[in-house]
């Protein structure tokens, strides 16, 4: 699909998913709804379509051409299939995703992979804030899947995370794994601070510098661990010691921050 008409405001592209395209003709796809503010348009008002959708979501691959910097929600709630976006994209890419794969050959805006349950997202550029976070106020965040950002990310990564993996290959700002109850966040660059605030469970691996660590974490060991295909030596910190503790078979389980030595 190629962008032919820019919207005045931002366009909500929640209909651009393999699940909604599967089994449909190009005309039916062009008829799918897209909101600009409170006005409901059709995808065909902004995009022209070529090719053929698969029979099922898993067989469907969507390639988005044109500059969709101001389009949101591609891949929202998708369960299978693939989306490739050949430019920057806006917010909520891959939100509530259950499976399949999304690649953005550019930057993504905030709320990338919000409340993700499964599947894969690859951002070749930077992401903004709330990568793999929970919906605002919800205590149930990302529970599965993989998000990889090759560039840097902003604040509030993996809020209320319960499972899955987030990899930020560049730097991150503040608030990682806040209120987390599981999940893994790997940051290969530097992190400004506030990692693991009120974390009950979960693992943060920081390969760069953590400028301002939180006081509720205690160093317990030095360990070797394999992270994203390479092995490093880490100082292991457990916490957040100010938060409630979970037990498994009578033993307390802590969250972990691994700082590369």
């Amino acid at each position: 699909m190629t962008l032919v008409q820019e919207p005045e405001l931002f366009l909500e592209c929640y209909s651009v998913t393999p699940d909604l395209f599967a089994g449909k003709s190009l005309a039916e796809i062009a008829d799918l709804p897209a909101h600009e503010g409170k006005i409901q348009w059709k995808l065909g008002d902004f995009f022209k379509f070529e090719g053929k959708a698969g029979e099922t979501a898993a067989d469907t691959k969507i390639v988005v051409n044109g500059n969709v910097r101001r389009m949101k929600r591609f891949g929202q709630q998708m369960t299978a299939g693939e989306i490739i976006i050949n430019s920057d994209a806006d917010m909520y890419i891959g939100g509530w995703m259950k499976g399949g794969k999304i690649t953005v050959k550019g930057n993504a805006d905030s709320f990338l992979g919000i409340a993700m349950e499964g599947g894969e997202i690859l951002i070749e550029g930077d992401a903004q804030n709330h990568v793999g976070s929970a919906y605002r106020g919800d205590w149930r965040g990302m529970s599965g899947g993989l998000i990889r950002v090759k560039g840097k990310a902003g604040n509030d990564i993996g809020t209320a995370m319960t499972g899955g993996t987030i990899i930020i290959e560049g730097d991150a700002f503040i608030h990682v794994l806040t209120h987390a109850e599981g999940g893994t966040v790997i940051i290969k660059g530097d992190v400004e601070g506030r990692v693991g605030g009120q974390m009950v469970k979960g693992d943060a691996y920081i390969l760069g510098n953590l400028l301002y660590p939180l006081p509720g974490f205690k160093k317990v060991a030095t360990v070797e661990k394999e992270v994203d295909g390479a092995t490093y030596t880490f100082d292991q910190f457990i916490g957040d010691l100010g938060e409630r503790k979970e037990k498994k078979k009578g033993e307390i389980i802590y969250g972990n921050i691994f700082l590369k030595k």
Partner: protein
Amino acid sequence: MSELLIKNGYIFDPISGIKGDKADIAIKDGKIVDKVSSKAQVIDASGKTVMSGGVDIHTHVSGPKVNTGRMMRPEDKFFRGSYRGGIIKQGKRMEMGFSIPSTYKTGYAYARMGYTFTNEAAMPPLLAPHVHEEFRDTPILDQAAMPVFGNNWFCFEYIKNKELENNAAYVAWLLNATKGIGIKVVNPGGTEAWAWGENCTTINDPVPYFDITPAEIVKGLIETNEYLGLPHSVHIHGNNLGNPGNYKDTLDTLRLAESYKAKNKFGREQVLHNTHIQFHSYKGTSWADFESGAKEIMDYVNANKNITCDIGQVTLDETTTMTADGPFEYHLNQLNHIKWANVDVELETGSGVVPYIYDKNIKVCGIQWAIGLELALYAKDLMRVHITTDHPNAGPFTRYPCVIKWLMSEKARKATLDTMKWKDKVIAASNIASMDRELGLYEIAMMTRAGPAKALGLAAIYGSLVKGADGNVAIYNLDANDLPSDPELIEAAFQNTAYTIKEGVVVVKDGEIIAEPHKYTLWTKVNMPENAQVMHDIKEKFTKNYTVNLENYAVFDEHVHNPRAIELDVA
């Protein structure tokens, strides 16, 4: 003015004693009349079930803690708020919120189910203006609110000093100041003890500083209620809600009413209404041996006509708990670790809000579900046992049709039991699996309109189709002589009426809102001579203890939306 004739429907009106006869209902100028002229608008209700508009005796839909719930739960609107209801000409309103609907959704969703009156479960007097502002923004439904008295400093002192007349004068004054309808009691003494981090878990635990017990508070308020002759009785959420073994505290609470007789000119016969009694019917000593105490509770309720109750049925949803029982909400947060809001309302009450998930695959939730249904199925007189979910505490009010389905169909109950992971443990800890009783439409009408209206003292206006009552009617797509064997169709019929009529105006047709006429705020106006001692005490407490001035406390006239006073005189 306008005339409406509803023809040929199967009428279920327990107040008049009509059990499914085919008859016509005539409405003129908003009231039920004997007959109308040939110019009347006619609705053909052939093959349909006709009842008075529904009456909800206990629901939390309007007010400060309700709104706290809305504000703290963005996820409650998640993927569920796209429907824009209302009539196009007025601009469609956003209907959002699954367990804590917006005021617009509240009005529309109740109307679609055939309800036309709701009783706001608890109003903190200091914050009454907020309740009335939400009443104004809730379409279609007539509403009333009950101020809370069970943790009120004035009441503590008057009751402790055995000054019944003074307590009565204060209650009358507060009903006027808040435009409230009756006396609500929530965890008597316990919410005040919570200001010290403590609680009252039995009726004999004294309140710190005031040194008054819940038993004294409840008895004092019952005496006050009957002294005044209020339309409704004391409406109580007793001590120790939600804890295994609490059925004993509930029986203790109910027994406090034993020596009292109802005194009023409104047809009310009970002196105590125990709300959401499911939460108070727990046996066992812990969650491990938790089991149903429904039989013990209903043995007492059945034998004592001076008690009414509503069930507070668990609907097995993700919902939100909100109550003036401050300590309970703290303990719930400690149990489920989900976000918690807590508020103290000076001199008066408190509140707490915590989301809760009643998961069908958790044994305790399955037993809670069973208890609510058992209470109704054990009941001998369904005029005294009403359907509620303590919305939103045990589930959203939009699940009432599901509750009705469970009560009317053993097959539906079994189907729900079959979905439970720990079905065998739930069955072992409850009685539901062995109960084959199925309620009929007449009994459902008792539980959802006639009974609540009578208990509220409002049966002359709501909940009945007698001449002179408001012309509020619900027409359901159910052929009373040929009920569907698929219980899901029963639920669907109660979810969206064929017609909902409010004071003779069709507001819902085929589940769609087509009109939003005016609506009223019902309140109790007690006419009694001014009590100089009580006025002095009020002025003194406002000077010494309240953070607001007395002049700013009472609800302003502009706050109250279309007030409709129930008047009574006290010598």
